[in-house]
């Protein structure tokens, strides 16, 4: 029964991969952060902490190394449904001061709903959303949140400068207009009418609106959509500067390379649930896979023998080149030598965040369907 023998370990690995990553991520608040970085403190908050009040006090008493005050955003078992579809399903998460957090998820994962709840544009069916210890609307009125929505329209028939000036006037702690325009890179188009802008330019104007004043949290929904590569790089350079000033940045994106390069924490949403929470490196590691590739100079080897390698999740043999994904590359390579095979040009590499993301969400799809 070679087929069966071949399939069994793979399924086993799949499940193992899921077991390995999924619960670990779900409880990331307690465990996932520990190895992250020196600036990050192991969280004492857990999803089952009864009230936000307790949570806040726990945090302030235990997180002595963190510079800024209490939690920026706290979602406590938040659920939001549209009819039968739970867009956000018992979501619990905490954002800390100074973090740059990427929110990832396939289409329909609940990213936009999560941001809408955070910004008070939608109200949770159950659970609580706290922003700087208050309701979202109060935090916005206090000028602590600057946000750029994917669906955020602009007032037409006015100039860019007039619109940004309005945003400055509405902010309790505004920056000078010229500074806001310059930072968003819209100084040169300041006199242009808003309805005459290209997609990328409109996006930069939205960014100017979101950063018109001294806000502590900046929320960006798919901010670089419609921007070309250089505009995108300039945008993130600006954003990094904001983060360096100690601001908390939360952005939803579907460009995984952006999340990989910019975020110091990545949240993976899937069907309204938090599937993974950690640094990009942790997500990659916990997706549980490394890529192994090598050539077989002595000719093809019996594939079923390769397929039986421990911790193997995928196998791809094309000609003399073999590509393997493994949840434990060390053990797999060790076993490979044990087969009496002598690989040439052996390479072992980590997965990209994109592949890790696909692996995590696919595993979840497989589990739930």
């Amino acid at each position, binding site marked *: 029964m070679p087929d069966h023998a071949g399939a069994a370990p793979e399924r086993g690995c799949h499940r193992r991969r899921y077991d390995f990553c999924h619960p670990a991520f779900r409880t990331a608040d307690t465990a996932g952060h520990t190895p992250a970085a020196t600036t990050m403190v192991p969280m004492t908050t857990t999803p089952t902490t009864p009230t936000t009040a307790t949570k806040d006090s726990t945090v302030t008493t235990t997180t002595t190394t963190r510079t800024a005050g209490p939690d920026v955003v706290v979602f406590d078992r938040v659920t939001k449904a549209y009819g039968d579809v739970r867009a956000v399903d018992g979501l619990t998460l905490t954002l800390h001061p100074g973090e740059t957090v990427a929110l990832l998820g396939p289409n329909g994962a609940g990213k936009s709903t999560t941001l809408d709840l955070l*910004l*008070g*544009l*939608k*109200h949770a069916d159950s659970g609580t959303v706290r922003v700087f210890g208050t309701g979202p609307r109060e935090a*916005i*009125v206090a*000028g602590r*949140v*600057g*946000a750029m*929505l994917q*669906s*955020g*329209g*602009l*007032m*037409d*028939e*006015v100039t860019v400068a*007039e*619109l940004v*000036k*309005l*945003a400055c*006037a*509405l*902010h*309790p702690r505004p920056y000078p207009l010229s500074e806001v325009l310059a930072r968003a890179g819209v100084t040169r188009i300041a006199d242009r009418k808003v309805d005459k802008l290209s997609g990328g330019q409109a996006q930069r104007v*939205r960014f100017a*609106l979101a950063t018109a004043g001294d806000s502590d949290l900046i929320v960006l929904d798919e901010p670089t959509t419609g921007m070309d590569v250089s505009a995108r790089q300039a945008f993130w350079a600006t954003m990094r500067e904001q983060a360096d000033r100690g601001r908390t940045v939360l952005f939803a994106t579907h460009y995984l390379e952006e999340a990989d390069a910019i975020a110091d924490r990545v949240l993976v949403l899937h069907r309204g649930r938090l599937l993974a929470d950690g640094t990009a490196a942790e997500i990659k590691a916990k997706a549980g896979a490394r890529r192994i590739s090598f050539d077989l100079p002595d000719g093809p080897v019996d594939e079923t023998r390769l397929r039986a390698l421990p911790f193997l999740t995928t196998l791809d043999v094309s000609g003399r080149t073999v590509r393997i994904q493994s949840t434990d590359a060390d053990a797999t390579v060790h076993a490979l030598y044990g087969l009496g095979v002598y690989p040439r040009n052996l390479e072992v590499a980590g997965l990209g965040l994109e592949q890790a993301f696909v692996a995590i969400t696919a595993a979840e799809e497989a589990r739930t369907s």
Partner: protein
Amino acid sequence: MNDLIKLELTRALRNRKFLFFSVLYPSILFLLIAGSASTTEKVSGTGLTLPTYMMVSMASFGALTAVLMGNSERIAKERESGWVRQLRLTTLPGRGYVLAKTASAAVVSLPSIVVVFAVAATVKGVRLDAWQWLALTGSIWAGSLVFAALGVAIGYLATGDAVRPITMITYFGLSILGGLWMPTTTFPQWLQDIARWVPTHAYAALGQAIEQSRAPHIEDIVVLAVFFALFTGGAAWLYRKDTLKA
């Protein structure tokens, strides 16, 4: 919020089409209807000459245009574009958006009233006492709030595609049925019976009562008050529904 009113106003004053239809168009219509009319012959049952009668009708029409058009279409379009959502991420209070729209429309409706008066006085020699001019301006301006509320309600009811036809039907319906384009006394009796209950009819009747130097009919005030309550209530309800949904 003042900043938003200022910007809304800048934008309204920049929009030539909007300015033409709300400020100049009523005066042009006045000249077309009353231009060749006799300045002594009275409109039956009113004691007013046609130019005097039509002056109030057209001033009311101009104010109606400014507040109804200004509110409904912009609100529906900006709801669709997401500007309303974006504004909700600022410190601006929820009502601020609607109030700013209405305030800027009211600023445009004032000249539309005054221009009709000026044209009527100079071209057709309409003469009234000083208090009458002031009272007319005040009542037509204040009365336009009823239709500003209607504009807001339509803006929150209609989608961006449907808003123009809906506004146009409402606008022409109110103008014609209310007797703003021709005195309702020229209507057949059954239509006159309907027109009595149309808010624009009551609106213009307030102004005509001032021209006749008599107290306004209680019926007209009640009709306007009821419609004002209906429109603001409807607008508030639709606004709240939209806010929860968005």
